């Protein structure tokens, strides 16, 4: 006999890092309907960007939308304002910005993989991945001065240069990290609890990915070949070894594989960037006040980050619209839960790598 039960997951739950509430309707153990409440940490940042802070300070405000991907937020905003001011950064600035974005992707993906391992019962592996992640955090701290919420990107450039000593340190840490990721790839491919157990679980099909506008690793794991790095000419990604990574099965295993392979690709890109850093100033004077309306997309670790900025030559902007990857991915996530076993919900959720701080902004 079928029994329908409503089970809430969150807003506080052992498997959640940040507050989100899913309301699952289950038939026996199978999830048949899902509701989501995502607004527990709304901070009114869009309003602050147009009414509390002048446009020159907004880059530092949006860096606080998310601790993990602060760099992509300040970069998106800065690109938007620079375009409204008619400024395009030189190649050295573009390379330094790309370097930070790719380092950000490496440590963010590693955090996600650590939580996936923890959900599979591998607590020691969680700690090991977090310890290895420090290699990247150290690089970010050495470059930007901060481990998280870096205020590295500035209008007209970046705030610090990469010195020859830093180049050596980046090489050393990335050389150390690469075999550790290869080892993780081996474990996520061949360990039963991390591979076979997750094959066929939490599947988002290619058609569903299109219908629900999936993005980032979630989309690419389903075979949807979309990546802002390939769809925007803001950065010369094709010159530094960018390769679009995708899988086709759309399950937890595929999402893990996409992230692992993207880490390896990002390590290669970081090495190419520091080996071929163009010469030039790291910051240039940009004059004027923003006028007009512009859209910017940047590939954050979780997928496409979207900014719309509108200004009319005043100290305060008319509108700053922020659309974050997790916010866009929630309809696809809800679809994936339907038909899954309730017991798999925490593992499925971890494989989405949700960021509620970004979502509620």
């Amino acid at each position, binding site marked *: 006999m079928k029994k329908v039960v409503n089970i809430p997951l969150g807003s506080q739950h052992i498997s959640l890092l940040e507050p989100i509430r899913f309301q699952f309707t289950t038939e026996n153990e199978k999830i048949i309907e899902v509701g989501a409440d995502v607004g527990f940490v709304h901070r009114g940042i869009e309003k602050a960007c147009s009414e509390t802070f002048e446009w020159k300070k907004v880059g530092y405000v949006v860096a606080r939308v998310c601790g993990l991907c602060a760099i992509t937020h300040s970069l998106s905003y800065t690109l938007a304002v620079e375009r409204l001011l008619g400024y395009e950064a030189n190649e050295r600035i573009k390379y330094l910005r790309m370097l930070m974005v790719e380092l950000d992707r490496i440590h963010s993906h590693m955090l996600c993989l650590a939580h996936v391992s923890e959900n599979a019962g591998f607590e020691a592996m969680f700690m090991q991945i977090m310890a290895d992640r420090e290699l990247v955090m150290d690089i970010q701290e050495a470059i930007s001065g901060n481990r998280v919420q870096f205020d590295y990107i500035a209008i007209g450039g970046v705030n610090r240069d990469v010195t020859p000593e830093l180049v050596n340190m980046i090489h050393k840490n990335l050389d150390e990290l690469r075999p550790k990721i290869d080892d993780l790839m081996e474990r996520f491919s061949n360990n039963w609890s991390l591979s076979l157990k997750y094959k066929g679980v939490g599947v988002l099909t290619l058609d569903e990915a299109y219908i*629900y*506008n999936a993005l980032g690793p979630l989309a690419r794991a389903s075979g949807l070949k979309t990546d802002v790095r390939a*769809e925007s000419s803001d950065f010369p990604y094709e010159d530094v070894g960018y390769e679009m990574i995708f899988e086709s099965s759309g399950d937890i295993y595929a999402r893990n594989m996409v992230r692992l392979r993207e880490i390896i690709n990002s390590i290669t890109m970081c090495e190419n960037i520091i080996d071929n850093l163009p010469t030039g100033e790291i910051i240039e004077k940009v004059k004027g006040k923003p006028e007009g309306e*512009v*859209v*910017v997309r940047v590939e954050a670790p979780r997928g*496409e980050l979207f900014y719309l900025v509108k200004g009319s030559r005043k100290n305060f902007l008319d509108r700053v*619209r922020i659309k974050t990857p997790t916010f866009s991915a929630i309809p696809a996530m809800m679809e994936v839960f339907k038909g899954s076993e309730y017991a798999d919900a925490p593992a499925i959720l971890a494989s989405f790598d949700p960021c509620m701080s970004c979502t509620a902004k």
Partner: protein
Amino acid sequence: MPIRKVEIRLEDMLDELTTFYDAKVWHFLTVNGIDLGDGKIELQWIFSKYGVKDETVLFSAVTAYETKVPSVVSLIPSATLSEREIVDMFGVEIEGAAKGLYLDEDSLTMPLRCSL
């Protein structure tokens, strides 16, 4: 990234988007709102093209605060949260979009209206 802006009338919006939108060609980005003052709001539906560099299309319709806005969720299921966000932030009514995504009953209402 240059924007191709298409100005439409709100009453034609669903027909225009139905003709335009192919889920396998266009990636739906978001619904946006901009308060223009004087009781008017600009609503925007924004898309980018898969696999093509720098192609973004923005459909724009200007409407009054009190006009009921049709929902695009039947055409674009993933628009549901964006529509609810607009309802909370601008206090416009969108068919089928419930209040309360971000704001509690006792919190500030319609925070992105310029008069507030």
